[in-house]
């Protein structure tokens, strides 16, 4: 199959990327664009380590073909840190100790961002529902929930 040139916006930059039809978005982000924040964890969309935002919605980049990102706006974890410093979600994860090994952290942070974008004041049930597809083996999730809930109370999710 022939490769094709697709256009997408990644972390605010408009890019042209040459991809094969079978290339996964995860591999294109990691191997072609050098954005290694999204991780391969399971390849089946079960662990959430590969989550990125596509037009603001969390997607498992290990399940999405790169061609499906044509014309879309992709936000990876690398795009979240602002020039003036960390995004409030990143600050909350740091302050609450919401990570141990950090492998699941990019996916957790992005799933949390998508939640807070659509619902700035989620209750705990909504936080847990939004993070159902993100596995973490280290933390027991307690501090992750605390971190996201602190933003819900503060209304700083945007």
């Amino acid at each position, binding site marked *: 199959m022939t490769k094709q040139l697709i256009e997408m916006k990644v972390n605010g930059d408009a890019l042209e990327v040459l991809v094969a039809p079978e290339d996964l978005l995860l591999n294109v982000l990691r191997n072609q664009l050098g954005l290694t*924040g999204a991780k391969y964890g399971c390849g089946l969309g079960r662990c959430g380590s590969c989550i990125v935002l596509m037009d603001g919605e969390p997607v498992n980049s290990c399940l999405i073909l790169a061609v499906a990102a044509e014309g879309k706006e992709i936000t990876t974890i690398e795009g979240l840190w602002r020039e003036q410093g960390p995004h409030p979600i990143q600050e909350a994860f*740091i302050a*609450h*100790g919401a990570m141990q090994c950090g492998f699941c952290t990019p996916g957790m942070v992005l799933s949390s961002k998508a939640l807070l974008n659509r619902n700035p004041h989620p209750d705990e049930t909504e936080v*847990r529902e939004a993070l159902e597809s993100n596995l973490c083996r280290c933390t*027991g*999730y307690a501090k992750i929930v605390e971190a996201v809930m602190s933003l819900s109370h503060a209304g700083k999710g945007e």
Partner: protein
Amino acid sequence: MNPNAVIGRPFPQLNAESKVKGNAAFCDDLWFPKMLYCRILRSPHAHARILEIDTSEAESLPGVKAVITAGDTPRIPFVHVGGPFQDKLPLQDSKVRYVGDEVAAVAALREDIAETALRLIRVKYEVLPAVFDPEEALGEDAPQVHDGKNNALIHIKRDFGNAERALEESDLVLEDVFETQAVSHCNLEPRCSVAMMDEQGVLKIWTSTQSPHYVRKEVSHVLGLPLTNVRVMEIHVGGGFGSRSKVCEDEAITAMLALKTGRPVKIAYSREEEFTATRIRMPFKIWIKQGVTNDGTLTARKMKVIADKGAYAHYGPAVLGYAAGVSCALYRVPNVKYDGYLVYTNKHFAGPFRGFGAPQVTFAIESQIDRLAENLGMDGMALRLKNANQPNETTTNGWRITSCGFSDCIRKAAETSGWAEKKKARAKGNSDQDTLRGIGMACGIHLCGAKIFADGDYSGAIVKVFEDGQVTLYKGNTDMGTWSNTTAAQIVAEEIGIDLDRVRVISMDTETTPTDSGSFASRVLFIHGNAAKKAAAKAKASLLKSAAAVLGETEKDLFIESGAIAVTGNPEKRITIGEAVKQSAEKVCDFISCEYHYDPPSEPLNFQTGYSNISAAYTFTTQVAEVEVDRSTGLVSVQQFVVAQDVGKAINPLAVEGQIEGAVAQGIGYALSEGYHYQDGFVLNANFTDYSMPGIQTLPKDGKLKVILVETDDPEGPFGAKGAGELTLNPTAAAVANAVYDATGIRCNTLPITPEQLAARLEEKAHK
């Protein structure tokens, strides 16, 4: 609290910012010019003789740069626990012994080319009868997993007091059988290694390991190279929980391919490989008898364990040996007899896993303690309090307990969980409801490092203080998510008297860090923490000596505060730490360097008798689970979980709470949902859909996962601290099982307590 204290405060992880930014580089994030990609050909058979391997077709595939089999290697087995247990080659030469065993490896320009090449390797096997059940494997006619070797690879005997007689003389004796299952560590990061030869002929290895110095030792050994020809590098590691506490095959295989090709070689395991070809928790079948007097005093414990080792010994003898230790030491029990058999089968093989055999035996002991209490008509908490280990006692097997908050843990867990009121309410029964509620308690004991390996239990630390006032700690073990770099830095900052942001940590790099056994056995905070503290104390003494000379004062009149050394009573008279380094007679170039090698005051395990004080400190935990059981489906959900744990001193409350919360999650998975399914040695559920590890909805909500830190100020621990990473997991499954019993009246002696198992038992009970 001292307002300048660094110890005891909830600092974020040192590398937290890089982790939330996505900058933290894990092994698979590395790329080097000319790098090749490796894939491993694995056995499709549980047991087969390798008759012939033809790699010619694979070698001729464009893009393939090397194919190796055992014939291309020195055929030296890994050391593992040493002695007669060195049974595993990096690539198998004569037989394969489980589905997944390493047979050949390919290095190619791309991963997909390497994968294609695997299918072109022709291996002629003679399939042999296989054995999967350890009890069958003990039979005389059972297939021999290792030719010429008995499948029972070790029998561990412990005999203290006279258990038989004590049981006869007990007022009440109970006997039960328990079975625990194989579970996966489920590290979110699948295994990955990169090996590369540098310009000086040193093999550099980046790998997801907990124990870089062990990897250096094993890889140099199996390649027949001098030790320092291998250098393990610093890299982020995505979890471990024991699966990475020793060498794995991929490190040796990529190293061999890097040697052969002269190019960097990477292997990144798939999730399926992570599930099927890395270590697992060893399944135990446990026969247990315990006796008590009418007043609830434990008199004796007799246990037999058959442990399913799988295809290779690995660290099995040590795991079973430590399980024996816990079996002798949990509670004051004067008479203990333990017989443990480690048995080869044709399945993927077990290794260390958080708790090191203790969760298996604790499940049995604590489930039965619950039954003893019930049969005596005694409250479970009261029975546990009566028999709890106490400070400054020696256990039956020679563990010299110093600091011990066991009784406090029991009381605090009971108080926080509302144990007394809830037990009283439960006494009325809940037989008419669709949702059954129950509460259960269990306790555990653990250690802080252990002298159960031939190498001992040591750690070195180097602390350098530079002319700019910055301090660097060199730490030879891994922070695979345990925050050990942060807590070690806190110890150094506190000891010297500087802010935490003045301390940097270099870890893992075997060339620049002093030798250390690795990050396992809840040892890093305690063993390395002591090394770091003592190295920092030397650095401080050197700084004070220099400052005293500069300021014309004596060292005892000086103190360190906020990056400066000042005179007591005249704090305006001061110099900065950097200046003290500059003026120091002891500086080397532009820094002061101090080293310390810490060897804890513990004793090597006497493997024959089991009597020795293997750790310099011991830890205790009490847990109370509250569950709801759906009567129709048998589904158990944990509504509240309380842990009260003796941590010595919480160097960083965020870090230690996180360790405890994470272990509870693993323990709940162990109790309720996790487990491998096999058919003829094939793993049927090697993915996160069919293997159910706890997600965020599995854990108690609304702050009902409660952690109480009990501080006992250990006399040997750095600033009183003890290890915490593993202990929590030991009794979690028992606490859940006891709560399930309280809810349903059904004792589940086989893990996991699946809805299927429980629903069937509930149905059976309803019809009785």
